[in-house]
């Protein structure tokens, strides 16, 4: 069975290099958390995977499909949820799901059933026919998540999906993601809420200065820094180490 996501030598620069030759392999059905300080390059990596940015170099394979050579086939298998919910103010959640199902060419009968189930599941039933324009951030994020799930993707990529959500909404989103991974769906998520990564992710990747500086299970990361501690401590240690190495390599280059 091919890996859900395989990235090799991924590089991207805007005015300066943002992603510097990242290699990453994520297995099918895995819950993978990508951590890193602000501006580390996490979102850029995920946007390249989602087909929203073109890499300068490297390759991306999604479930065995070369995402750069055949983006349409790759997109058919995945869903992207950003921290800013991609929802139309003047559509209702049901109309939004109808639109998304149309884009992914989901069978209408299945789409209708799936849309109603998702709306129920995410607690949006009382608002199913209200325009999204008046929704709170949490409700919008749930609508966006329903949109990501209505076409049954095999790979879900989420960029900071829990930012700004209240405890109840965050719990609902986490439950949905857990259920999906137990059903074999791969979830890749960036988050600044380390407790979420600690509890939910099977493997964690740490990005700093555009490089993947560490990767593994929580235990593997603990072993790496040689201390039995929280993910927060591990993360801060790794980022500090990464910054020191980066600074050394810059000095060497100079």
């Amino acid at each position, binding site marked *: 069975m091919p890996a859900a996501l395989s990235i090799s030598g991924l590089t991207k620069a805007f005015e300066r290099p943002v992603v510097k030759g990242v290699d990453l392999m994520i297995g099918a059905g895995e819950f993978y958390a990508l951590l890193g300080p602000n501006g580390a390059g996490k979102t850029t990596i995920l946007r390249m995977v989602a087909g*929203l940015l073109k890499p300068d170099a490297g390759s991306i394979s999604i479930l065995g499909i070369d995402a750069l050579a055949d983006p349409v086939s790759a997109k058919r298998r995945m869903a992207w949820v950003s921290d800013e919910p991609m929802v139309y103010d*003047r559509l209702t959640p049901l*109309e939004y799901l109808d639109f998304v199902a*149309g884009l992914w060419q989901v069978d209408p009968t299945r789409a209708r059933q799936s849309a109603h189930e998702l709306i129920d599941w995410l607690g949006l039933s009382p608002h199913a*026919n*209200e*325009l999204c*324009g008046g929704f709170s951030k949490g409700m919008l994020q749930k609508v966006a998540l329903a949109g990501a799930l209505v076409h049954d993707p095999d790979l879900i990529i989420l960029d900071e999906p829990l930012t700004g959500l209240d405890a109840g909404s965050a719990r609902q989103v986490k439950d949905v993601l857990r259920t999906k991974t137990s059903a074999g769906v791969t979830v890749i998520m960036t988050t600044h809420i380390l407790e979420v990564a600690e509890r939910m992710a099977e493997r964690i990747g740490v990005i700093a200065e555009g490089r993947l500086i560490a990767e593994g299970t929580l235990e593997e990361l603990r072993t790496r820094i040689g201390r039995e501690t929280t993910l927060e401590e591990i993360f801060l240690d790794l980022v500090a180490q990464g910054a020191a190495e980066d600074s050394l390599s810059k000095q060497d280059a100079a």
Partner: protein
Amino acid sequence: MTLTPASLPWLAAHEFRLAWRDTVAMMTGGRRMRLFGWIAGGGTVFGIMLLIAWFAVRPWVEAGIVIDKQALVMISGMGLLFWTVTLSQALEAVTRVYYGRSDLDLILSSPASSARLFAVRAGAVFVSTTALGLLLVSPLVIALVLQDGPRWFSAFLVIIALAAFSVAIAMAVTRLLFRLTGPRRTRLIAQIVAGIVGAGFVIGIQAAAILSHEGFSRLAFFQSDAIIAAAPASDSLLWLPARAALGEPMPALLLIALSLVALVATAALIAPSYGRLANAAAGLNHVRGQRRPHKRAFRPASQRQALRRKEFLLLQRDPWLLSQTLMQLLYLVPPALLLWINYGASSGDGTFIVIVPVLVMACGQLAGGLAWLAISGEDAHDLVATAPLSPATILRAKIEAVLAIITLVMAPLLLMIGLAAWPMALVTAACAAAAAAASTTIQLWFRVTAKRSMFRRRQVASRAATLCEAFSSILWAGTGALWAAGLSLAIGPAVLALLVLGIARLLAPRPG
């Protein structure tokens, strides 16, 4: 000098600093060299306007300007046309004072006086409205000053007075709308009123000119015997602005004093309610509109159909956007009227030639607006971009949505022309299609990722695109007019229109 925090001058200084930085950023886009381009370009355009104004007023000055009823009607009519533009601008700007949210929540949640903030923002609207007025009218006034003497400088006072009256009226209208329709509908209604005031008067005069003279000229309408005979006597107070513009000192002083009193009094009356109304407008973000479930939801549809359906639904559900886009259709009323009154009587005599360029121009402009909405104004850009369809398919679907709306709007008019003079209908259809295609292509080349709510600012975002779109539509309109007249010269503007398209391609940013 240190200003007392939260005082009127302190708030004014804050507003001025923000406005100044916005203007500089808009003009330079971070590159200082662009500022020189703006100065050079702006200077050239102003020079050309001055030259046109110079030759336009010359015969009048040479004949000797006499302040009679005809001159007063003419100047008042033109002043009224100009005033509608400033009133429309003021209505738009005052609405933004209530509904613009950028820093309003911060200031309204602070102990600073909301009434003072309103006074400062009303003052800013007055300054911007005056600046627009001065910019529009100064070539004409300078030409008159240079040829007829400095008395014409008093026309600038009239501009300031008209701007003050405009802002006072705009504030009163907005406040009245809040009371009559509530915060939910005020913005929409005020913006529709602004659009109708801005375009409506020009169109109304044009329509009246057509009905009375079967021609388009507004100036001829103001000079017609019937209008001059019906106008009040020369000593009427109605001519106060015209007399002020002609350099009579007393009317000028009276007018400026009256307008400033009106402005200050209106602002003082309305300011105390500002905080409450602005907060009520902010509360609208949490209002939810209930919709009946769509009957056609979850029916089989292709990806392109899904995209088109979404475009139609969003446009239909956004009355403000719809009104802004379709406002351009108001300009079709005069040609439609001309078509109607001449229908059947003069189908073959070339009357419809006048209509061809108007329809072509309207079509180009309408296509530009709709194309921006469909191509650039995508609220869920990431969603559409991550959907399993090629960028070409997305664009095709969006362009189809634009063309479908234009076809719907233009078809009845083309049909009417076609029944009366089918070759003319063919010419119109061909040139309108070319203008629409060119505008859509330009929007495609200059596409950016933007929210639909940015529609009003789209012309600021890319002036190159706006200018190319306007020139292209004008040139296709010219082609249509010449072609309809049977002149082979039509090839000239057509070639120029293609050249403009080529320039647009060169100016357009390359995808990264």
